[in-house]
């Protein structure tokens, strides 16, 4: 990370988080992963550590525990030169400096960052981030940047390959370091492989870097009969337990992954141990995908895929769009997802032979072709607590508070579908 430039305060903010549900319910948008690193990590790699972050009020308590910088501290947006950075901007392959002239840098009509000096901040007299940004976009010199600003969950998946390449460029190659067994194989240029010192690659594992780099972080183990195809990034302490980890995939820390994964992001602390296909998907944290859980990422008629966002079908613009699965969701064996499915947080889904609905609201159960209330919030929270404890992570009171808040804001959409499907249980007399 760059040396901190004390000349200008750096704050990262989030906005437009609703369009990134379900993967943004329990985290700020800048904590989403693209490539090896989180969006915030890329920003800080380019600009130095943030002095502060601004998030939805509901996330502030939980994330103040997790982030190194101050959270929602209004004193940070006055009194000193300030650089405000959009947490949805992907800072990959960019040359942006923390110190520089006042300006509002845009990507199309989206703010990437605004640099303002203290006097301008005072003159603007704005006390909120949106107010400052609006005034900056109107009043400061502007320029256009070739930077992706994430708008929808699939944008992260589409940007993943370039982000992996950029993360690899920063890391550099290590070739066959770590524990690289006899009988393991690198296909393609070894200079396109980064194997951390504590990573292990077992016999009969193949790292195919012919079409893109491969990153194996600290503690990664690639077990026999696993083929990893670049560009791919495998996060700290993740185990690849056999199968095909295909191109354009990022897997975060402490995951257990097998079967087939293609062009997907698994955020971290999630398991897909067994056979089943995951493609063009974003899977949150603490998800467990049961054996043979499979999603479709291509329609039989090759048309573009639509995804339910905030109650509306939104065209992804792409033929290849998979599933977006919120944190703490669990699927049973043989669960099948249609193309472009959205699954909320903390769901318990049991397949019943066919594809599940394209939208499953947070905190629901699905079984016998029916969305249901299930065993309720308390048991879901206890399951989350138990899952996290298995990895020695505490579910804090603030985390639980955020889950309860999310339960409330998703109640209406869930109750509507629960009542609709419950009619199937009417006794025929």
């Amino acid at each position, binding site marked *: 990370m760059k040396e901190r430039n004390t000349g200008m305060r750096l704050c990262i903010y989030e906005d437009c988080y609703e369009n990134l549900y379900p993967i943004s319910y329990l985290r700020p948008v800048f904590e989403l992963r693209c490539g090896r690193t989180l969006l915030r990590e890329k920003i800080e790699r380019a600009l130095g550590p943030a002095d502060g972050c601004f998030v939805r009020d509901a996330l502030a308590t939980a994330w103040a525990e997790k982030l190194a910088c101050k959270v929602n501290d209004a004193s940070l947006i006055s009194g000193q030169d300030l650089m405000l950075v959009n947490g949805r901007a992907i800072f990959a392959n960019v040359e942006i400096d923390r110190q520089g002239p006042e300006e509002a840098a845009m990507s199309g009509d989206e703010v990437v960052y605004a640099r303002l000096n203290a006097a301008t901040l005072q003159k603007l007299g704005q006390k909120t981030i949106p107010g400052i940004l609006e005034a900056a976009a109107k009043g400061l010199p502007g320029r256009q940047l070739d930077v992706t600003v994430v708008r929808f969950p699939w944008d992260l998946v589409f940007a993943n390959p370039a982000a992996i390449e950029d993360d690899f460029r920063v890391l550099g190659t290590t070739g066959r370091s770590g524990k690289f067994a006899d009988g393991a194989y690198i296909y393609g240029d070894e200079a396109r492989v980064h194997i951390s010192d504590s990573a292990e690659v077992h016999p009969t594992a193949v790292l195919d870097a012919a079409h893109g780099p491969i990153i194996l972080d600290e503690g990664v183990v690639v077990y026999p009969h696993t083929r990893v195809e670049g560009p791919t990034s495998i996060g700290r302490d993740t185990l690849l337990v056999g199968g095909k980890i295909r191109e354009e995939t990022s897997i975060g820390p402490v995951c257990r992954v097998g079967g087939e994964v293609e062009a997907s992001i698994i955020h971290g602390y999630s398991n897909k141990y067994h056979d089943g296909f995951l493609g063009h998907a974003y899977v949150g944290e603490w998800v467990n995908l049961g054996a043979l859980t499979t999603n479709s990422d291509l329609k039989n008629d090759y048309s573009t895929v639509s995804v339910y966002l905030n109650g509306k079908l939104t065209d992804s613009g792409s033929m290849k769009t998979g599933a977006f699965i919120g944190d703490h969701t669990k699927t049973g064996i043989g669960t099948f997802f249609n193309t472009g499915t959205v699954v909320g947080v903390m769901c318990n889904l*049991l397949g019943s032979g066919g594809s599940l609905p394209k939208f499953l609201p947070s905190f629901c*159960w699905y*079984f*016998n072709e*029916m969305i*249901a*209330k*299930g*065993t*309720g*919030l*308390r*048991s879901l929270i206890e399951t989350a607590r138990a899952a996290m404890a298995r990895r020695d992570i505490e579910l804090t009171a603030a985390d639980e508070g955020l889950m309860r808040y999310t339960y409330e804001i998703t109640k209406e959409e869930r109750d509507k579908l*629960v009542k609709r499907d*419950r*009619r199937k*249980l*009417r*006794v*025929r*007399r």
Partner: protein
Amino acid sequence: MATVEERIKQVVSSVLNVPEDEIKPEANFAVDLGAESIQSVELVAAFEEEFDIEMDEDEALQVQTVGAAVEFISNVMKEQGKL
């Protein structure tokens, strides 16, 4: 008009595929009527649909017998103005 108990028995019969005349007030849903965990959840949903009520899932899933369900559901119906 069928009583609450009669309607509960009809629901249980439908969900668990057990003849109504085998459903006694003292019958335990899991032990006597064979309800597995998913079916218990389904029963709660079916009762909510039958009686047009909303039950607290934690409390509803603590109910173990048909007779206790009659009492529990009757109380919920009174609280929610359905009885």
